[in-house]
């Protein structure tokens, strides 16, 4: 599948934003973060900026972005529509939670419940995003239970790494953040490793013989393409550029997305405050590179069944 930059940025940024929103809300409501306005502004502001920026970016890959509001109508059947509805619904409790934290210095009571509601809706939104991909039976590399697991785990993991950095900057850092970050990184690493193992071992459900129904007459191969130049389907579904580099890119994702952030977070536990803050920043940088690589691969390694007809 063609890895559109707008969709890569959308899924990584909004995933990290939702992860940060979930963890910031839980930590604030649980009394593990002070209810100071500036901290609330930076944490919830950063989360909502990542979410909003991601959603805005997602409209860039639409042919008619001015009609994007139509996409909220078919939540009964469409995961894309559900995602849109949930994403917008999340802004209401998240906004109220932010008002309470930033302007009133309150993260308990009504505003606490708004934080909890925002966190729950955020989980459902990320799940819906992942199901857009996981529900497609046409793409064996996406039609897997590990896909929603990976989206949730990587979202939480990104949020945890961001939360660790921001709390260190503000000097309100507690070990609980690191514990959550380490757990999230390990879970994300495990899920993603399981995912890559699964797609390497997955045989295609159909081949040219079974798809055409001509396999009963013997081996089938493409003799003539239907046209001399590539068409929309071949550009969109037949993307092959990154596949030959898949191994190296996977190694980069292992290091950038999991190994380095884990190393920085663990080392930060034993380092003096200034060094630990620098390490937390390093973890964020490594995460950005790793996450973009991982999401690029998620698209580039996906093979769409309609390319079978083209003998590819």
């Amino acid at each position, binding site marked *: *599948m063609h890895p559109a930059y707008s969709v890569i940025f959308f899924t990584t940024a909004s995933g990290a934003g939702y992860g940060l929103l979930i963890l910031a809300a839980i930590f604030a409501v649980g009394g593990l973060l002070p209810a100071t306005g500036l901290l609330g502004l930076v944490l919830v502001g950063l989360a909502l900026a990542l979410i909003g920026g991601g959603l805005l970016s997602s409209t860039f*890959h*639409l*042919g*008619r*972005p001015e*009609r*994007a509001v*139509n*996409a*909220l*109508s*078919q939540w*009964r*059947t*469409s*995961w*894309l*529509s559900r995602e*849109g509805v949930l994403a917008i619904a999340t802004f209401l409790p998240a906004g109220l939670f932010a008002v309470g934290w930033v302007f009133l210095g309150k993260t308990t009571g009504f505003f606490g419940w708004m934080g909890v509601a925002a966190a729950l809706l955020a989980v459902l939104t990320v799940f819906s995003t992942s199901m*857009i991909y996981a*529900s*497609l*039976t*046409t*793409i064996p590399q996406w039609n897997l239970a590990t896909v929603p697991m990976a989206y949730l785990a990587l979202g939480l993991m990104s949020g945890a790494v961001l939360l660790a950095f921001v709390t260190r900057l503000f000097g309100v850092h507690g070990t609980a953040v690191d514990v959550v970050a380490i757990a999230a990184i390990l879970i994300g690493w495990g899920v993603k490793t399981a995912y890559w193992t699964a797609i390497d071992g997955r045989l295609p*459900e*159909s081949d*040219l013989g*079974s*798809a*055409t*129904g*001509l396999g*009963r*007459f*013997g*081996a*089938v*191969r*493409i*003799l*003539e*393409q*239907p*046209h001399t*130049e*590539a*068409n*929309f*389907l071949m*550009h*969109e*579904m037949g993307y092959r550029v990154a596949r030959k580099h898949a191994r190296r890119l996977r190694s980069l994702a292992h290091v950038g997305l999991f190994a380095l952030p884990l190393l920085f977070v663990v080392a930060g536990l034993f380092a003096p405050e200034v060094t630990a803050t620098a390490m937390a920043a390093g973890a964020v940088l490594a995460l950005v590179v790793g996450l973009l690589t991982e999401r690029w691969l998620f698209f580039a390694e996906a093979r*769409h*069944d*309609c390319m079978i*007809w*083209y003998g590819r």
Partner: protein
Amino acid sequence: MTSLPAIRPEKRLGLAIDLDTCVGCHACATNCKEWNTGGISGPLTDVNAYEAEQQGVWFNRVFTYEVGGEGPNARTVHFPKNCLHCETPACVTVCPTGASYKRSEDGIVLVDHDRCIGCKLCSWACPYGAREYDEVVGVMKKCTLCVDKIYNENLPEEDRVPACVAACPSKARHFGDFADPNSTVSKLTAERGGYDLMPEKGYRPTSKYLPPRPGRRSAAPVSAAGEPGLEGAGRFLKWVDRILSR
């Protein structure tokens, strides 16, 4: 609405495509483009139409496959492919806008080009590659089974068939109602063992493919030299023998 019709449509219009008689002339694809670029889906835009890397919207594409490897059993099969108007199409249910829908009266799957946002998810959901993105108009387009032709009362009745069917010079495309067991398409499907493409996907295509008939050479080998009874026969008698052996 992208919910599928609650009850099975009374009519199930579709095509029976005969892989035995298709000669791969691309007339179906060409006439489809010609009709639909001026019909409700029009224009079917082309990009770089007169230069390299041309790309355009086509609803019908004809593949050519070689089947059976090399040797006497090898055969060439031309394989036209367009929307199969599935009974449970995922391209409809994934649509977030309601632009994609399946008609309850005849089962035709259509796109409302005024609602479509061009997110392309329907094309991701279709294993048949039936949906194409019109990058100039910014919306998805697909085979309409010539819905603006088959019901068009301004046309003589014999012309009310999809453009691809009208153009086919070898009668490889048959149009009709699969819900009616007495229709030509239903009978052909029953007689010839018409089959679904990628049935494992579970989208239950309405249109069927009629398999190539057994090759003549492999089914009834013509008399070879040395066969008893033909020694000394001249070319004429060998020809008569060949005709009678069919």
